[in-house]
């Protein structure tokens, strides 16, 4: 094990923290102490690599805790306790991760706090790195984290938490960003992988599969100038086949449990897209069947899961024709009628049906409502392209 590898260092954080909390330290104080130890490790280890990185982190964090609370003279006694700990096993590693994820995804916390705390306490990122990933000042992120921990103060952390919340938080981390200095999508995949060591719950495996199957297409999603390339125009040779293979394997093991859920269904849809050698070979019939399953998961999908209904409308358009797809989007007008995605999907469907003027107007309406510059520029380009009535290159 190379302790200088950042991945190794980060993976140690939840294990050390779980060890501290399990032996009775307060979560808040232990997490702070470990953060200090982590920053120290990043500084010191390149020159002086530790013999046992985990023990080093535990010792430094413990020393910090002891200094904080009981004064320096209790230090030696505590250190003896630390070194007397038995060596951990793999099962413990999974358990540690799950235990800490439940702490960080405590239902009393806001989603942004859950995300920040998870990245720090389980992901092993420093406050500065998390701040950079979300483009906020370090002081803002530090405040958010300490507020979150204050909320946890005194909360009982010994009961099993809500796995659904943990999955949602990991998916938020995944969706929050790609390609920054800290690759949040990569971090989310790493955490989801750790989570699947600790639980056989099919949705946890479904989430990991979904992330892998989407992440595999990342290299083709932007061109060299940073422009968005839509799925049907991506260079499929740039997709990461190793990640697709792993995603399919993980998904199959999840589906075998025959307890479907939304992450498994979404992963199955992603797998069908990944599986098509070209956009024209996409198996829309099967994709539509999975979307039928997805919208059946809620009682009132138009209100409760409009994103799924909107995505299904695209599949309907490809299977039953553009007019049918557009009719599906009509049902969403009251819920999503001010969102750029609603217009973008309609633009795609109008174009599919050959109504280029309506497509151009819909793309322009979408651009007008976009909240992301890359998406806005992409939608402007789509509008200009169909207005110029350039025939789409058929592949």
């Amino acid at each position: 094990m190379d302790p200088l590898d950042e991945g190794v260092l980060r993976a140690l954080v939840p294990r050390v923290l779980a060890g501290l909390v399990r032996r009775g330290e307060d979560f808040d104080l232990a997490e702070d102490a470990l953060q200090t130890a982590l920053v120290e490790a990043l500084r010191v280890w390149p020159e002086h690599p530790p013999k046992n990185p985990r023990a080093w982190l535990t010792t430094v964090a413990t020393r910090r805790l002891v200094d904080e609370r009981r004064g320096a003279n209790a230090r030696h006694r505590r250190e003896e306790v630390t070194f007397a700990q038995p060596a951990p096993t793999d099962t413990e590693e999974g358990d540690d991760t799950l235990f800490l994820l439940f702490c960080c995804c405590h239902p009393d916390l806001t989603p942004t706090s859950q995300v920040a705390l998870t990245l720090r306490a389980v992901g092993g990122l420093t406050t500065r790195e998390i701040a950079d990933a979300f483009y906020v000042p370090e002081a803002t992120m530090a405040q958010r984290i300490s507020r979150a921990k204050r909320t946890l103060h005194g909360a009982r952390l010994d009961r099993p938490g809500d796995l659904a919340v943990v999955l949602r938080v990991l998916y938020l981390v995944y969706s929050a960003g790609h390609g920054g200095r800290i690759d949040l999508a990569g971090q989310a995949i790493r955490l989801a992988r750790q989570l699947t060591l600790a639980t056989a719950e099919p949705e946890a495996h479904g989430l990991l599969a979904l992330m892998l199957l989407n992440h595999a297409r990342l290299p083709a999603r932007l061109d060299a100038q940073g422009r968005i390339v839509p799925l049907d125009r991506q260079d499929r040779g740039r997709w990461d086949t190793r990640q697709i293979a792993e995603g399919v394997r993980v998904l199959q093991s999840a589906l075998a449990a025959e307890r479907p859920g939304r992450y498994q269904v979404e992963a199955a849809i992603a797998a069908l897209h990944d599986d098509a050698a070209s956009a024209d070979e996409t198996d829309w019939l099967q994709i539509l069947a999975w979307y039928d399953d997805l919208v059946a998961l809620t009682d009132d999908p138009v209100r409760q899961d409009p994103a799924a209904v909107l995505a299904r409308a695209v599949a309907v358009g490809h299977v039953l024709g553009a007019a049918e797809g557009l009719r599906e989007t009509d049902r969403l007008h009251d819920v999503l009628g001010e969102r750029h995605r609603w217009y973008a999907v309609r633009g795609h469907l109008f174009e599919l049906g050959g109504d280029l003027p309506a497509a151009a107007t819909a793309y322009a309406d979408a651009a007008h409502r976009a909240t992301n510059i890359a998406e806005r520029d992409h939608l402007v380009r789509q509008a200009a392209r169909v207005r110029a009535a350039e025939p789409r290159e058929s592949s």
Partner: protein
Amino acid sequence: MPKYLLLKHYRGGPEPYRAVPPLDEWAPADVEAHLAFQRNVDEWLQQNGGSVVDAQALTPARTWVRYGGPDAAPVITDGPLPETSDLVAGWFMVDAESHQHAVEFAAYVSSEPGPGGTPLYEWIDVREVMSAGPADD
């Protein structure tokens, strides 16, 4: 170095020097040229002894909000507003050597390619940022 705020507008300001249709109605090649210019616009300032501190774009959706009074919800309106009311589209916060320097950068921003690849001549609103501390003298 003094700071200047350069504002781009969706509407408002002097009569446009060159009237153009919305970006999505331009020829695709003109859209590309325009967006490519925007991506690299800060290079001019870097090469000319200043820097862009921050540049952001705003969506056109706007909400006006005011205090509603004690125990009352905030009062919100989206209009009606005069047709000509300013609608800011985005800004550059720049470190420039002087007002003249900021004006030169604004002129460069305004030279962005429009339809047909020729300059857009867009009006840019240049504002000096007040410094917080007492003036040295």
